């Protein structure tokens, strides 16, 4: 009952937006929607519903799911910690070659993830440019570890966050930072207490994008971190390997991943996105 009461103003607002949808917009929009949804529907249609409960009770599945959620969340956290400042740097400061740096930041978006994984190995591997020092000085090896999974996912997911936050920063009025400065705030305080709250919706949207990307990450992860159940085998890896000899199991695993990500994204959307 309360639902109908609450949904009424929302519906009115929707009506106010646009009453007539022109066919040249509607037709491609529906085709686009169908194109996005059909593969998912096919997955549901072909899902082995009867053996599903059995699949889902397998400890390996839950282990992979847990690892996926932990790693995607950690990768998002890592992306936030370094990605938001990077976005700020790109949006708010002027330095030679900034356009070039921005292009570099988006590079992981166009790089095939497997290539990204190889690149990560060449950089942070036991024999890598940086990795050999990590190994010999600190005894840290990243490949084949959960940390490696998080790094691989961060590498692929962070550009989404940086681009989203940078766009929001560019749209935000930099004079608020100036106003904060005249009130005695250092540039960092101004960023923390004024800019960050102002761009929060953009940061949230970027984080959600990055999280979703990290959750589905396959190529860079398996190349850089390998595949070991409980340590580096995330859901996409489990799905891929199951696909090799048991497509039904692969579909079941995909459904689990889908259901969990939809649940998380829906929950986040209600909490974060509607505020913007």
């Amino acid at each position, binding site marked *: 009952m309360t639902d109908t009461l609450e949904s009424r103003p929302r519906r009115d607002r929707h009506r106010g937006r646009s009453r007539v949808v022109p066919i040249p917009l509607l037709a491609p929009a529906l085709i686009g929607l169908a194109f996005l949804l059909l593969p998912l529907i096919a997955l549901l249609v072909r899902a082995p519903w009867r053996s599903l409960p059995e699949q889902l009770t397998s400890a390996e599945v839950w282990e992979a799911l847990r690892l996926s959620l932990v790693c995607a969340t950690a990768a998002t956290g890592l992306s936030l910690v370094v990605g938001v400042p990077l976005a700020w740097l790109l949006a708010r400061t002027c330095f030679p070659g900034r356009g070039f740096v921005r292009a570099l930041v988006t590079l992981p978006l166009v790089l095939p993830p497997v290539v990204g994984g190889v690149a990560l190995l060449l950089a942070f591997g036991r024999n890598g440019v940086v990795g050999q020092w990590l190994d010999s000085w600190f005894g840290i090896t990243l490949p084949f570890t959960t940390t490696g999974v998080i790094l691989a996912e961060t590498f692929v997911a962070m550009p989404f966050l940086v681009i989203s936050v940078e766009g929001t920063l560019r749209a935000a009025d930099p004079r608020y930072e100036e106003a904060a400065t005249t009130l005695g705030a*250092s540039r960092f*305080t101004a960023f923390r207490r004024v800019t960050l709250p102002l761009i929060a919706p953009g940061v949230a949207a970027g984080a959600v994008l990055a999280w979703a990307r990290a959750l589905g990450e396959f190529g860079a992860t398996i190349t850089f971190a390998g595949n070991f159940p409980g340590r580096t085998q995330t859901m996409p890896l489990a799905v891929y390997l199951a696909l090799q000899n048991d497509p039904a199991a692969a579909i079941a695993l995909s459904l689990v991943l889908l259901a969990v990500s939809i649940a998380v994204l829906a929950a986040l959307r209600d909490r974060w996105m509607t505020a913007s």
Partner: protein
Amino acid sequence: MTETTDLGTPPPGHLSEGLDARLVVDRGAFRLDVTLAAAPGDVVALLGPNGAGKTTALRALSGLIPLTSGHLLLDGTRLDGTAPESRPVGVVFQDYLLFPHLTALDNVAFGPRCRGAGKAEARAQATEWLDRMGLADHAGAKPRRLSGGQAQRVALARALATRPRLLLLDEPLAALDARTRLEVRAQLRRHLAEFEAVAVLVTHDPLDAMVLADRLVVVEDGRVVQEGTPSDIARHPRTDYIARLVGLNLYKGRAEGHTVRLDTGPGITTTEELSGPVFVAFPPGAVTLYRDRPTGSSARNLWHCEVAGLETHGDQIRADLTGELPLTADLTTVAAAELDLHPGAPVWAAVKATQTHAYPA
């Protein structure tokens, strides 16, 4: 700031209290070079057309842009090397820039917090400031819930809450509609009168400037062209811009006795007896228009002109004239109809010597 060249030595005998500044800012083709001085309690208005450099001057005072050269002293302390967050300067921005995610109270408490006050202390101070502005009821409101006038007062409270020694106001009334403006102008005048340190406001509205400020500094093209009290400037404009602002016809020429020979054009007979370079000014209302050359008129100043344009101006008609002497004339609607004025119509314009005002340039 480290690269600033020639900060200039402060003039000897500079004020140990108040503002003493020479602001030089180079921005490509534009150069700002203005000198400002004000004692505590003074309200100075920087008046000028758009693009004159007023806002640049304000930003230089607040430290948001560095000086190319010159100096900035406040109460005897040099500020031109100080970061904006460390200057005892408060700014009320043109569109207020209230932080949209904070309540009115937290907006006002922001400054005291940044300057070291504890959370409770800052809020107590902010409450007091809002009280003083008559906004106690709106302390918990987010900026988007405030009216224009309320937002303006919150912005003022926020700037004052840091107890600045220099208060800067950028077009403080420009964002308001005409009705609110009247009311807020009066309130702002009261608050500025209570303010014990130096206030500098920037405006392009002569009325705001004259009501709010004790002293006007008129800036055109990055330079100070005139400064003085509002009444002085209103009576003795020295540039076309100011003359237009205060509604006067203004001419420059050389006086020989009661006659001022204009640099371009005819002479004007005045009551003052002067010699050397002078300005002559007269209000548009002092001009009488005739379709035919008047014979019995006692006016000594009579020029043959042509109507260039007509517009309503309050309940009057303002006629723009070109010809022997370009000038504006005000006349009643009835008079305009009787004269059958229309663009291109030839007219005779007469001004009595007693209505003119000449003063040394």
